[in-house]
């Protein structure tokens, strides 16, 4: 009997999810601006969603649960982006810059 094709196994999905998480963390550490860090954070969100969907598809007793959960994650991500961008705009008005090294007023 042949093994199932690649898209019917959980391993590739989990590997891509781990890759997305790694790139997200790397971008979060590497980016010197707030918007770049926000984009990296979105990548981490996507990694979590893909992980949940993989386990939902292959191992969950009820396949609707994971989809509802990922839908909630997307809603929260949209709300988070709206809030974060308004904060970034407010920061830019006050500092004329969104580089993380310039936001050092509380640096002791």
């Amino acid at each position, binding site marked *: 009997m042949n093994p199932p*094709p690649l*898209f019917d196994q959980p391993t*590739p*999905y989990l590997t*891509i999810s*781990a*890759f*997305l998480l790694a*790139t*997200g*963390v*790397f*971008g979060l550490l590497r*980016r*010197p*601006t707030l*918007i*770049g860090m*926000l*984009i*990296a954070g*979105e*990548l981490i969100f*996507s990694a979590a*969603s*893909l992980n949940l*969907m993989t*386990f939902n*598809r*292959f*191992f*969950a*007793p*009820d*396949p*609707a*649960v994971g*989809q*509802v959960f*990922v*839908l*909630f994650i*997307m*809603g929260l*991500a*949209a*709300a988070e*982006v*709206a*809030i974060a*961008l*308004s*904060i*970034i*705009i*407010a920061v*830019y*008005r006050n500092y004329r810059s*969104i*580089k993380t090294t310039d936001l050092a007023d509380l640096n002791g």
Partner: protein
Amino acid sequence: MNSSSAAPFLLTLVFSVAVLTAMGGALIAVLSHRIIRSVCGLALCCLGLAGLYYFLRSPFLALMEILIYIGAVCVTIVFAVMLAEPDEPVPRAHRVGSLVWASVLAVAGVLLFWGLTRLTAQAPVTVPASRASDGSVAAIGLALLTTYGMAFEMISLVLLVAILGALAVARPGRHKP
């Protein structure tokens, strides 16, 4: 070649395209120097993820991924890019101390993930014998309005508060020209 043997090959091809799109988009998102390219990389990554969701038997979530992430999140980020000037400066030369710290952290991260993977591999997950529902859009709607009705209402509240909060934070400082 008849259709029954050609179909898995074609599906694998489409699957690889989706995987490469997601990975390439993620790499563009974190590696490019201009923020607008980074946003485009994020959009590309979300497009690939939508394909992966389709392969995970959830066309509804594939649609939502495109609608919310590309249509809302990426467009909002582009607006912020226009309002602020986020282009990155030329990266400074690396100091020796930061290189040492980076290598120590990289080794620690690899060890941590390796250990976690070993731990999870030791506890095998079982494939359920039967599914409670078929995971269709009708089943999702039923779950949203019965089992998860409270969470559904709560997330609408969260979105309302997020909109009001975004307005309240970004509003002061604006004045008429």
